[in-house]
Structure formats: C-alpha cells, structure tokens
C-alpha cells in the first residue's frame, strides 16, 4: 500500500498508540501483560513502589526544609529550565528541586531561617 508521511504524523501515531493503552478494558490489559510474559501482580506492585517512593522522597525533602524553619507556599513552585524553584516566605531564600536528583537545594538548605529564629531557638532550648 502506498503511503505519505508528514512531520506531525509521527507525533499523531505515537500519541494515539499511547492513548490506546487506556482504551483497553481491565481484562484486555491484564491479558496483554500476561501475553508479554510478565506477571501482572508483580508489575502492578512495582508500579506502586515507584509511585510511593516518589511521594516519600517529596515528603522527606519537605520535612528537611521545614526542620530548618523555612516556610514555602506550595502553590508557588515555578519551573525554570527544568528546575523547580520556590522561596522561603519568611527570609526569601531560594529553594530549588530537581526531579532528576530528587533533592532540594538552594540557599535555604544551607542554614536555618533567620526570620524564623523563635522556632529554632525554642527547639534548641528544649534539647
């Protein structure tokens, strides 16, 4: 069969194929996974693990930040050239997060929030 191609064609074909996975019924996707020689339960558990691990990472990084007394507005993350950036609402220090390294960095992580000294002092005093 003769065919013609275009630049966007590749994108359309791939998009449709990715979407077609979601058009399969539960039975069909289970059957397709089994046909490929993979145990569906194991595959599903592995996916759960990956998703859960990402949430755990995000939680521990946020706890690390807040243990230094910094407070960020969770709705103010901005993506700048692939790196997510935010600022401490109290002292203005930069907080950045890279999904590749999965770590928070920036000035805020270098020390306690100077504007939120009370919290830190209170904690230190009770040690």
């Amino acid at each position, binding site marked *: *069969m003769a065919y013609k191609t275009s630049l966007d064609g590749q994108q359309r074909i791939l998009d449709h194929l990715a979407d077609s996975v979601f058009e399969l019924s539960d039975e069909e996707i289970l059957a397709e996974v089994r046909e490929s020689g993979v145990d569906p339960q194991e595959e599903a558990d592995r996916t759960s693990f990956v998703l859960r691990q990402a949430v755990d990472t995000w939680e521990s990084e946020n706890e690390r930040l807040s243990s230094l007394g910094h407070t960020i*507005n969770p709705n103010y993350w901005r993506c700048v050239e692939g790196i*997510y950036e935010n600022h401490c609402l109290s002292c203005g220090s930069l907080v950045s997060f890279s999904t590749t390294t999965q770590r928070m960095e920036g000035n805020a992580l270098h020390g306690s929030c100077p504007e939120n000294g009370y919290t830190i002092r209170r904690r230190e005093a009770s040690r």
Partner: protein
Amino acid sequence: MAHLLPFIDTRPPRRPPAPPLPPQSINTAPKTALVVANETLVKLLRRCFEEDGYTIRIASNTEEGRRLYSDFAPFNVVIIEYDVPVRNGAQIDIFLPQTSGRDLASDILKIDPSQGIVFAASPYRSRDDLLLPQELLHIPVMIDITIFQLRTLLSRLEVRLAMAALTIADKLRLKRAAAFWVQVRGLSAHDRTADELLSEAQLKTLIGAKETQQGRHWNRDVDLVRYLTEAMRSISNNWKRQSEKEKHFRLELSTRDAEGTEQSPLKYLASPEAAADRILIAKEKVARIFRMFKDDTEATQVLQGLDDGLRPNEIRQKYGLDKKRFAAAVKRIRAKL
C-alpha cells in the same frame, strides 16, 4: 372541540411540587475534615480549611472525636492534636508520655486503614519525640503548624489516597504507557527507564508547577491516571529534546570549519539547516514505522489514517474496519513498536 374532550388537558403539564431536599450531610460536601484539637489550633486550621473549600467537624477531645468519626466517616483528612485530652476537663500528667492522640489514630485506622491522618504536635521538637509505634509511622506530623505546611500535607494526602485507589489495571496501564514513551522516543539509549519516567511524573504531580506559571496541583477531580499519563508524555518529550540538544552540541563541538576554527553550537542550533534535518529525520522515522507493517494491510491503513490526522472512527469508516479489527490492528502496532 376541546369541550368535547374534557378529559384531555391541553395546558402544559403542571410540575409536581419539588420534594423537600434531603438534609445536606457533611459527607456530600466536596471535601471534609475532622479536627480533634484545642480551641487555638482549631481557629488556625479552620481558616485554612475554609479557604480551601473544606467542611469541617470539630472535637475538643478524643471521646468526641471517636463519636464524630463513627457517625460521619470517611473524611478527606483527620487532624489530631497529639496531646488532646481524652475528655473535657481531664488533666494531663506532663510527666507521662501522652497517648490519647495516637490511640485515637489507631482506632480510626482499625475502622479505615486508608483514612488520611495528620498529627499536630507543636510542643515537640521533632517527630522522633512522639515515640510513634510502627503502624503509625506513616502519619505525617506537623511540628511548626502553618497554613502552608498544612496545605502541603493535604495535597500529599490526596495523592496518597488516589494512589491507594488505583486498580491493578490502572497501574499496568501507567507502566505500559511509561515503557511505550521511553521506547518510542528512543530514550532507553540514553539510559532512561520507564520507572524513572513514572517517578518524575509523580513528582511533577506533587510539585504541581507549570512552566513560568504559578503552581497548579493535581486535584482529585482529575483522574490521577490521566494526569500522570499527560505528565509522562510531556516529560518524555522534554527528555527527547534535551538529548537531541546534547547530541547536537557534542557534534558541533567536535566540528571545525575548513580553516580549523571552532563553530558555535548556538549557531548550529539556530540554523534552518538543523530544522530541515529534524524534519527529514522525523519523516524517516514515520517511513520506518510504515515499513515494519508493509505486509499488514489493516495496520498500514490505521497508520495512514493517523498520519493523515483522522480520528479512529474516521479511519474505521474510510477503510471499512469494524471496531474489533481496528483494535486488533492497533494492538499489533503497539506490540511491534
């Protein structure tokens, strides 16, 4: 004529009186919270919850909290002040470890293990001081109680709840889609894996930021599977662009002109020749896909239809394919790619 047919009422039918609305239960509200805490903490939390559209129930002791939970559960979140008294007027012995808050949390989790709970523990230095038993270690603890911290925790709880609700089939679809994007974009050659893609999409969902815009978090009105899928599509595209850029930089850095002068990589990236190259490469990739199915007429028809920008039903109509044959052809393409 109408008088001969008195039994036919030609007037527009009168609507029967509307039945009284059933009493609005708190559980039909979009988002609900149970706060078991002292008055000062309640005041702070109430502001945040109300701003975010939550309906809240309040208890000042664990006995009341238990009763409200058994009457009105489930809640989107239960906030428990760690040192909340068992009943009003009950004295707290500060020399003994406090257990009322964690006992309430344990009881709630026995009723519903997936119930999202947050401990508020401002008098403590860190979560380690709470001496939580193993089964409660997953519960987030707010030491510095601020509205922003609460919002962050609430959004994470919502994601956790949505994750818990995913079926095996949902997880398999996500994994397949991730593997598909990594494979077809040629990312495996750059050591990228489907798990990495899935993980990054999940983090993006939690961060909620969009390019140069203020953050927009996933919310539970949007299907999490769809949201993650769109995130994976976008991330895999960015990875692809990034790897192509790096490739061009590497090529260009090793290239010198006839006089041996080093060329600027930026010059190369901006050049129309580079864009023309990319078009040629993309066309060749589509042609390669078609060649893989040269002996499969129906698969070729589906590919041709998609390449022409037709929708699935238009493709089926154009080539006379019924739903089953169309789905089978798509499955063959997916399996081979």
